[in-house]
């Protein structure tokens, strides 16, 4: 007869264990899901660390191309906040009903930079683009990454697009474009200023900061998405991004505000 009691006890214990595991999984999975444009990964990691320490909330960051996130969000990805690399995508999301009205704001204005890993390769006027000294120029996919679109705009404003087109190599996002140049598989590439400058100083290689007359300004907008609508952490993060301390952190990476 005692075997029946044993069985019940074992079932109870297993059930309790399973419930604990499920709960702990839920606890572990908590943490606000934030989609961040690749070019902002450096600054965002620091901002997230400061935010987490000051507010006690946890963040889970995902980095990628803005266009990629747009498709994912439209298909139900559970992001609460999107830090896009352009101003169009947040608008589109609001229009399509995936983001909260009037919640979009500019968290940074990006600068495009022509960069090479070799010091002294890129001159301060970008004349290197007119030469034949490079075989490949890396850009982010212009259909998905605003920095890629800005690169194409710059080249066509300079009248060099047709000539350089056969040398173009498309990366799936700005981080991969940077990787192509950093591994020297492409001698030149159009990257985000925040990827190669730190506190106003070029980390390595040589660069030409593209004048903002050559492309439409890269206003990077953040927006509150539907999953984060009433989430206190999401609202706290958005407010934090507007504070002066966050802004000065962002500026130190070469963004304008």
């Amino acid at each position: 007869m005692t075997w029946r009691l044993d069985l019940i006890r074992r079932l109870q214990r297993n059930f309790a264990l399973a419930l604990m595991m499920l709960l702990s999984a839920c606890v572990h999975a908590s943490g606000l899901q934030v989609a961040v444009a690749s070019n902002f990964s450096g600054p965002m990691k620091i901002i997230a660390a400061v935010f987490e320490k000051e507010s006690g909330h946890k963040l889970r960051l995902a980095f990628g191309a803005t266009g990629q996130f747009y498709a994912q969000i439209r298909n139900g990805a559970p992001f609460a906040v999107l830090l896009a690399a352009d101003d169009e995508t947040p608008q589109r999301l609001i229009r399509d009903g995936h983001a909260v009205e009037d919640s979009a704001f500019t968290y940074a204005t990006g600068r495009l930079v022509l960069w090479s890993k070799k010091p002294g390769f890129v001159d301060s006027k970008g004349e290197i683009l007119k030469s034949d000294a490079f075989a490949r120029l890396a850009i982010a996919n212009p259909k998905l990454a605003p920095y890629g679109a800005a690169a194409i705009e710059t080249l066509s404003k300079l009248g060099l697009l047709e000539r350089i087109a056969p040398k173009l190599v498309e990366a799936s996002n700005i981080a991969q474009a940077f990787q192509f140049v950093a591994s020297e598989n492409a001698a030149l590439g159009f990257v985000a200023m925040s990827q190669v400058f730190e506190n106003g100083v070029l980390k390595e290689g040589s660069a030409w900061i593209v004048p903002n007359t050559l492309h439409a300004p890269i206003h990077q907008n953040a927006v509150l998405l539907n999953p984060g609508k009433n989430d206190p952490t999401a609202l706290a993060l958005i407010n934090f991004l507007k504070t002066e301390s966050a802004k000065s952190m962002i500026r130190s990476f070469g963004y304008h505000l």
Partner: protein
Amino acid sequence: MNFFNDAWPAIALTLKLAGLSSGMLLIIATPIAWWLSQTSSVWRKPIAALITLPLVLPPTVLGFYILVMLGPQGWLGGLTQSLGLGVLSFSFTGLLIGSLIFSLPFAVQPIQYAFEAMGKRPLEVAATLRASPVDAFFSVALPLAKPGLLTATVLSFAHTIGEFGVVLMIGGNIPGQTRVVSTQIYGYVESMAYEQAHLLSAVMLLFSFLVLLALGQLKSRHDKVLT
């Protein structure tokens, strides 16, 4: 139609890549498979493991290391640069090298198993009939391993058609050179051109199915001949 302008070069490129790599792999893999099946050297197990590596590694890891290897700092890139060939990344040749590495285990293993399944007996009999080792290989071993060779061709062809991670890492998405069907479909999905994505996927699905059906037919006909 705009779809055909974009899609046709990608399809042609993919078929070219798959055809070339499976053809080249047949030539490269057969001696390796033969050695692995016949040798009792202490190197057998480590080399077998090395060849199986691309099977287990995530394609992005493979692609990343191939990119490093092909770049000017890598050993292959350094070689091609000193020969005046530039770097092979973002070129069709680079993709071909990637495919050969990526599909190597799919070519070597079926052929190796076919040789092993044959056993020592046919070769011993051939030796008693005065066949040299080379003659025995070509007139006895190879014909007996035909099903394995066919499987190797089919697998490496199909595997190259589906290659995505490696191409994404080393391709650069250059139309006509490195934009294959898998990255083209990815591009369509990313830019929300779902209709084109459906169309191209359907075309590739149908094509792959027909190829596999045809090869299956060939195999069963070969088996019929033997019995």
